[in-house]
């Protein structure tokens, strides 16, 4: 049957091609704006590519991408279980702050204990941040999207408040927390970084992100837990009819999603930031997670690669001003990509356009396809 499908049908039916097309269109629109500004498209995109393909550049990309992978996983997990976790922003912030508190207050502990403790603390706090929202939804039917947005702000101010507590606050003049103990750092050793020519913040957080990607995939696709969560996500009433406890499933899904975002906060802190500044605005890791999840087709591995792609855009984008292009170009590209993913049904329409308007061409095309094989 596949043999007879023409190229348009394949495009119309393959989700990953929609995503790649969207990305392509994003860059096309970016190029359009570069042209309007009278800038050299080749130079700008060339710079973008060259800055992320060197060893050092790519190590930056990987480091940048860790938090995006984690929030992307968090949102993707929630999508698959029928919830829209727009609250991964707050869960990320809370997880980050939990890791910071542990990393500062228990800094004497050896790494082998302190690091897992930071991870665990961040995951628990992120999970709790998700569970509260789930509880509000189950108990009083409060729309989770609304309460999550509010909880993002609660997390924002709570984080700023905690950063101001004397035991946590920096001893210097910086409006930030103290630095976390070196024992809590996930940075690679200085020698290794120098030998390999990596960026100074190169850390092994990416391995944790990869591990979490695999775990999320296992849960969703291979376990009874994932079955239960998906069943509730797809059809609450049928799941209930089938004997699944719906309220508990929603809480579980939010807890896992929140834990992933929370861990993302810890990984970012322990690998890159080493302290948390007093925010003046939301950092947007959680919101970027939505973009990453969308680009990754709500699939954990998709989110992993989309996270790296996003990290590359952010890092590469920061180098654009070297060729005179505004770094905001990246926002244009990302925005366009998301827009096209959101309306990717238009790619599915390709099939119909083709059949209706050029039936003969379609026949020829499909014969050709057949011959090729």
């Amino acid at each position: 049957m596949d043999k007879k499908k023409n190229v348009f049908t394949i495009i119309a039916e393959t989700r990953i091609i929609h995503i790649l097309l969207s990305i392509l269109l994003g860059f096309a629109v970016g190029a359009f704006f570069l042209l309007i500004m009278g800038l050299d498209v080749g130079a700008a995109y060339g710079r973008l590519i060259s800055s992320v393909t060197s060893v050092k550049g790519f190590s930056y990309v990987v480091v940048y991408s860790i938090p995006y992978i984690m929030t992307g996983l968090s949102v993707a997990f929630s999508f698959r279980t029928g919830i829209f976790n727009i609250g991964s922003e707050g869960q990320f912030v809370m997880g980050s702050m939990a890791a910071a508190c542990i990393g500062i207050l228990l800094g004497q502990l050896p790494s082998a204990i302190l690091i897992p403790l930071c991870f665990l603390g961040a995951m628990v706090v992120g999970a709790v941040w998700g569970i509260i929202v789930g509880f509000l939804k189950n108990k009083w039917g409060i729309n989770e999207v609304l309460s999550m947005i509010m909880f993002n702000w609660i997390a924002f101010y709570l984080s700023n408040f905690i950063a101001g507590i004397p035991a946590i606050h920096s001893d210097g003049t910086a409006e930030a927390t103290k630095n976390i103990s070196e024992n809590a750092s996930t940075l690679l050793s200085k020698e290794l970084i120098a030998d390999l020519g990596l960026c100074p913040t190169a850390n092994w957080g990416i391995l944790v992100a990869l591990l979490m990607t695999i775990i999320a995939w296992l849960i969703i696709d291979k376990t009874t837990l994932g079955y239960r969560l998906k069943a509730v996500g797809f059809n609450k009433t049928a799941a209930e009819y089938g004997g699944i406890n719906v309220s508990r499933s929603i809480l579980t899904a939010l807890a896992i999603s929140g834990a992933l975002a929370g861990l993302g906060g810890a990984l970012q802190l322990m690998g890159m930031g080493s302290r948390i500044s007093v925010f003046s605005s939301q950092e947007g890791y959680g919101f970027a997670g939505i973009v990453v999840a969308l680009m990754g087709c709500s699939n954990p591995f998709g989110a992993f690669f989309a996270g790296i792609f996003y990290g590359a855009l952010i890092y590469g984008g920061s180098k654009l001003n070297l060729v005179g292009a505004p770094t905001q170009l990246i926002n244009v590209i990302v925005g366009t990509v998301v827009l096209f993913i959101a309306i990717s049904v238009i790619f599915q329409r390709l099939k119909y356009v083709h059949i209706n308007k050029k039936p003969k061409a379609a026949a020829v095309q499909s014969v050709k396809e057949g011959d090729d094989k």
Partner: protein
Amino acid sequence: MAKEYIDMNTPVIEMRDIVKKFGDFTANDGINLTVHKGEIHAILGENGAGKSTLMNQLYGLLKPTSGQILVNGKPIEMNNPRDAIAAGIGMVHQHFMLIQPFTVTENIVLGTEPTKGVALDMVTARKNVEEISQRYGLAIDPDARIEDISVGMQQRVEILKALYRGADILILDEPTSSLTPQEIEELIVIMRSLTKDGKSIIIITHKLKEIKAAADFCTIIRQGKYIDTVDVEKVSENELASMMVGRNVTFTVDKPEQEPGEVVLDVKDLHCNDYRDVEIVKGLNLQVRRGEIVGIAGIDGNGQTELVEVITGLRKGTSGQIFVNGADVFNKPPRFGFDHGVSSIPADRQKHGLILDFSIEDNLILQNYEEQPYSKNHFFNRNAIFEHATESIESYDIRPQHSERRTAGTLSGGNQQKVIIAREVQNDKDLLIAVNPTRGLDVGAIEYVHKYIVEQRNKGKAVLLVSFELDEIMSLSDIIDVIFDGKIVASVPGKDANENDLGLLMAGGKVNG
């Protein structure tokens, strides 16, 4: 049967040798259809036979791969429904296309609203709607909101909507699938009066009884192929059924006499409220024993839906007791009932019965996914699940074959029901509750479903059958309990029941003697 309004010399629709292909699949393979002025023409075929595809071409939603469509004798090419509407064709879909919070008037004039300058002229709109409703004898309340009126009324609104746009040819897709018997009768009267006005009507259906009652001619389609067009008066229901499925169909079920055993389901003085918190089940008593089918006959809205919801644990009762095999399942979660012997074929297969986005194989283990061999230590054994699905697909004749990993949503209604039946029967519980198990199914599938229900009874299971189809209740039940106003008002042995008495009891009347 009245054919006096038909003008056999004036064909209004002629579809000639229509072929419609979707890739490799031929949905319509050389279909001919002629409809005359003032005629009610039924299109009969099993689920997936290509009826809707044919009508979608007539309504401009699809273009034929080859073939010709003539409207009022002139060849016509339709690119979209607007062209069809312009040609005087109106369609009422099975699932109504109405805006729930809007009023009847607003829905009818939608898209062709009368205006005063830039403002809507709702006064004129309302007047127009009243006028057209009177002209065709379709009484409606123009100011009622769609969400507040019954399904039968909503259908009237759909018909009026088509008439308002000047339709002379009405296509009704499965018009009776969600109507009560009374509403069906009313619909038939309405269709008749419309043909008197020179309208032509095409009904897509698989209900033989209604074809016999309403249609003048009937075109039968089987697996995309044109079988025949017959004069409905001259064929029997059985003949229609065989033409439709391509083999002989038996309507009678093989049900040997047997003595019922001990009580499995015992409902005592049950009370519960409906979604508005108004009491709807008002002290109901019910027993079902091993090896018998108890049918609940009643008009929709008398508490039967809520009764089943309480038994299966989806709704909380206010008071009473429910025992299944001696265990009190009253106000326990669904899982508790399941573990104590309740299985059920729910009324709404897409809402309660299946997870449409899940594959067939995953739907088949909805209650057993945590048991071996399907999973061990929380990890699935995909091979076992797949094998289980393969076996079920084979022994329950789920089509298409090899559909283990296809999502349930891609199956036809009849096959979705087979998936549920396969699951619930294989759960092998002592009590089977079936609610409208054949709603929307064609005769082939109905025969099949009935066979399995009776088989469960013969195997010594207790079966509670709730159905709005009186025929179904009468042909399957050992005992018929009539429900009215939240109570069982009468209990008659199935073999002694007659339609008139049951009808009276269902309406709250009394039967003499």
